[in-house]
Every structure is written in structure tokens, then in C-alpha cells.
């Protein structure tokens, strides 16, 4: 990949929406919105809620479906010669398998990212990502139907994320994306109600994500992509040092639509200023004191 900085799934639309400001070719790879075998309509509004240092969302994986993505949007990435990572999910095990099996290998598809961690759908998503045994089974089955490198995107809301990560790798995952949002609730004090329950993201999540990246990257031999609350270049650098080979930026883009290009430049400036040639020089150098 040209750059180790990616977008987090679902935080850069279908890629075309950011065009008026900057082009997707800026990214190491574009991570697609979570795709399912059939189009999915998502959840009732309200879908977003602000917290002091983060936000809660309950989009519910609204998406046009995997077929329509490849018909309508993939040509845009081909034209721009921008690699993509296809994030996908299912409501059943069969849907995961069918969705992954449908995606034909292509020079521009660098990986599939299997969402085992969305808190916003009633079935599927997070329910497959909670137990090592279930993670092992579903990753193994999906791995059997695709030749494309497979990343598993995991939830931090488990007893021991290292056990989950290990199970995914034993089943053949080629990499891990850590972490997804944390299940949370918003509260409207004026109206005295809970306007939504959903996934918490933003800076409030960063230390949780960093711990998961640090512990899992020590335990497995596959590459780890770090994601959770990365707001600037130093946040990104800390994830590399904790063991991530690439990082994803999500919520930061909503606050500053130029967050990704700024982080790309900032990381490069940091490497130059400290005499490092590539991020390989800093990946995983941080140890517990």
C-alpha cells in the first residue's frame, strides 16, 4: 500500500462523496462501507449522538449491497487506480460466506475485511465475534470460499480480545482490524430519555483500541490494522509503535474532513524528523515500562 493510512469502514461513504475536497487516491486503500449480500436499509433515526469526547452512532449498516457496489462504485476506484479493502458482514453465517464468495479477486482488492463486531444490528455482526470458537468457525468457512486476503475486524467488548484474535488467526485470517466501536448509550437529560444505543467512537475509544492493538500484535504473527479515536498524526504514530502496520481514521473525518490527508502528511513529517525511512522502523517498538 502506498500509505499506511486508511479510512475506517462507514466513515467515508462510498468514497465518491469526499471528491470535492480530496481524492480517494490519497489513501493507502479505501475501506468500503460495510457491504452485505442484499441491500440493507439501516436503522430508524436518530442515528447519531454527541458525547463529550466522542460520538455514538446507530446507522445499522445501511448499504447498497455488494452487487451494486461493484456495478456502481468500483469503476470509480478502477479509474483512479485506488486499491480497496472490501468490508462486509452478514446476518447469518451463510450470508457471510455468500458475500465473501461473490467478490472476485481483482488487482485492486487488497483484502476483505470481515465485520465480526458491529453493535448496531440485531443478528450477525457482533454476535459472531464474542466467542473464540464462533470466530474460529466463521473465519475458517469464509476463508475457504475466497482467495483474497482476509482480515477480521474485532470488537473490544469481549472477555479477552487476545483469545479472539488468536482464534481468528488459527482459522486462517491474514490480518486483524482492531477495534470496532464499543456498545454505548446516549442520554438526553432534557427529555429524560435514551435517544439511541449504538457504537461509541472518537478519542474516548483510543486507549482501549491501543491496548487491543498492543496485546494482539504481540500474540499473533499477522499484520494488525489499528483503529479507534485516531484524531491526528501523533495518535497514528502511537498506534504504529504499539504494533499496528496500518491505521484507519473514522470519526476525525466528521470533525475535520481533511483529517486523513493531514494525518498522512503528519506521519511522513514525523518519520523524516526522527530519521526513520519507513513506518517499518517504528512498528511495534513500544514496550511496557
Amino acid at each position, binding site marked *: 500500500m502506498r500509505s499506511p493510512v486508511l479510512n475506517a469502514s462507514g466513515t*467515508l*461513504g462510498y468514497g465518491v462523496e469526499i471528491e470535492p475536497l480530496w481524492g480517494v487516491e490519497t489513501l493507502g486503500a479505501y475501506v468500503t462501507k460495510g457491504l452485505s449480500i442484499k441491500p440493507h436499509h*439501516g436503522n430508524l433515526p436518530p*442515528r447519531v449522538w454527541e458525547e463529550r469526547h466522542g460520538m455514538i452512532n446507530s446507522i445499522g449498516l*445501511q448499504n447498497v449491497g455488494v452487487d451494486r457496489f461493484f456495478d456502481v462504485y468500483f469503476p470509480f476506484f478502477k479509474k483512479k487506480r485506488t486499491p480497496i479493502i472490501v468490508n462486509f458482514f452478514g446476518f447469518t453465517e451463510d450470508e457471510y460466506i455468500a458475500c465473501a464468495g461473490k467478490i472476485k479477486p481483482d488487482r485492486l482488492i487488497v483484502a476483505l475485511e470481515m465485520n465480526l463486531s458491529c453493535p448496531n444490528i440485531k443478528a450477525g455482526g457482533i454476535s459472531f465475534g464474542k466467542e473464540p470458537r464462533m470466530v474460529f468457525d466463521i473465519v475458517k468457512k469464509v476463508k475457504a470460499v475466497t482467495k483474497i486476503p482476509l482480515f477480521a475486524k474485532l470488537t473490544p467488548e469481549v472477555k479477552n480480545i487476545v483469545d479472539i484474535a488468536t482464534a481468528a488467526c488459527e482459522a486462517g485470517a491474514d490480518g486483524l482490524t482492531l477495534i470496532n466501536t464499543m456498545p454505548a448509550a446516549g442520554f438526553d437529560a432534557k427529555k429524560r430519555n435514551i435517544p439511541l444505543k449504538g457504537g461509541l467512537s472518537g478519542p474516548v475509544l483510543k486507549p482501549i483500541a491501543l491496548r487491543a492493538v498492543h496485546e494482539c500484535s504481540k500474540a499473533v504473527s499477522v499484520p494488525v490494522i489499528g483503529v479507534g479515536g485516531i484524531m491526528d498524526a501523533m495518535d497514528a504514530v502511537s498506534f504504529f509503535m504499539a504494533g499496528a502496520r496500518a491505521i484507519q481514521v473514522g470519526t476525525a*473525518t*466528521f470533525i475535520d474532513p481533511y483529517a486523513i490527508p493531514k494525518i498522512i502528511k503528519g506521519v511522513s513529517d514525523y518519520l523524516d524528523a526522527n530519521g526513520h525511512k519507513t513506518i517499518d522502523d517504528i512498528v511495534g517498538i513500544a514496550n511496557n515500562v
Partner: protein
Amino acid sequence: MDDIEGKILSNKKIAPGYCLLRIRLSRSMGAVRPGQFVMMKIPGGEVFLRRPFSIYEYQQRILTIMYKVVGKGTEQLSNAPKGTSVLTLGPLGRWFTVNRSATPVVVAGGIGLAGMYALIKKLQNKAPIFFGCSSKDEIALLKDAMRFHPFIATLDGSYGFKGNVVQLFNKHLKGLNGKNVEVFTCGPENMVKSLKKLIEPYKISCQVLLEERMACGLGLCFGCAIKTTDAQEPYKRACKEGPVFDLWEISL
């Protein structure tokens, strides 16, 4: 469209709970059309996400926003003094399109006027304007629109017609009925609902400016979903496919 720095020129309380904000932008944000909005934030402030605001007026790099203080974001904004730096991303969203063959009519409720004023100004005196609010305290919202002689309703009857704006519009609807009318509207959900009920039998076309909680304003997050009547696409984005929608394509 871009993210542009600006400085607050003035931030005046124009009525209890309502303010008019004027910002000088460091550079032009390009052509602004009626109904479009900006995502705004005060850098370094307590507020995490940007907030969407309708563009009340824009000329010569001066952006004017009329807003109601409703929560943490607008509360913070209302306390921002002259000279405060702001970031404005815009202009965003789909705008009102005026069909030349129809007679335009504007129906605005309360702070809904903030999103309608640019259109009112563009239409000059071509459109009858119906404005409704709670009481005479809010008549100050009409400060610029008053020159276009709006029909005014207050819920408490303290100014103009006593009742809501849809009832007031209904009184004039018969007179307009012969003409090919197109309604442009923005206001509280209940107002839009009763307007819809009123004009449904007449098959009047209507463009409505809607609001929803937003995170990005750019169509990236799918947070600002608006329910539609289309089974194939039951949710559209207020920021991208809207905020101006065909009233008959949305589900209220």
C-alpha cells in the same frame, strides 16, 4: 465548497432564544443557493461535532446565520463574542429549485424561516409568504422578510392571525387554487405534517427543507437519515440528497 475559516463580526440576540450571526470568511465559498447549509464549529470549543446551520444570507464573503438556541452547541455559539474564529464547511446540500411555470408560495414556521429567507429574497415579491410563530416575541425573526409583506400567524394571537400558519395558509388557499401553485416550506415537524394533510387533496407540489442530527454533513456517515416513501430506498441523507426534499417522497 470547502472548509473555510471565518471570524465572527456580530452575534446578536434578536428575540428571546434567537440569534443572528454574521461571519466574515477568509475567502469566498462560491455560489450559494437557497436552502443550502454549512457545517460549523468553533475550534477548540467544548462541542465535539460540527453543527449544521441553514445559510440565511451570503454575499461578499459575509455569511449570515439565524439560529435558535436549542442545545449545547447553539448555547456555546450564542456566547461567542465578536472576533471568535469559526470553521465553516459549505455550501452543502441540495437546494430549492424554483419552477418558473408555477406560482411559488412560502410557508415558514418559527426558526424554519432561517432556511427560507434566501429563497424569499430571491423570489422578491413574487411569492405570498406565510409565517407562523408562538407569539409576538418572535416577530423579530421577520426583520428582513417584513419588506415582502408576509401573512403572519401567532399561536397566542398576540400578532396577526390567531392560530397556526397552516390554518392561515388554508384561508388563502382557495384564492390560489386556480393557479398552478408550488409550496416551499420549512418548520416544525407538526407544521409540515398538517401542511401535507392540507394540500394532499389538491395535489400541490411542495419542496420541504428538513433537518436531522448530523455528524459529517458530506454524505460520509449516513447519520442524518430521512425516511422516504420509496420501499427500495427507505432512507435518504438529509445532508446529501437533501436537506430540500420533495414532500411527496418523504414519510412523515
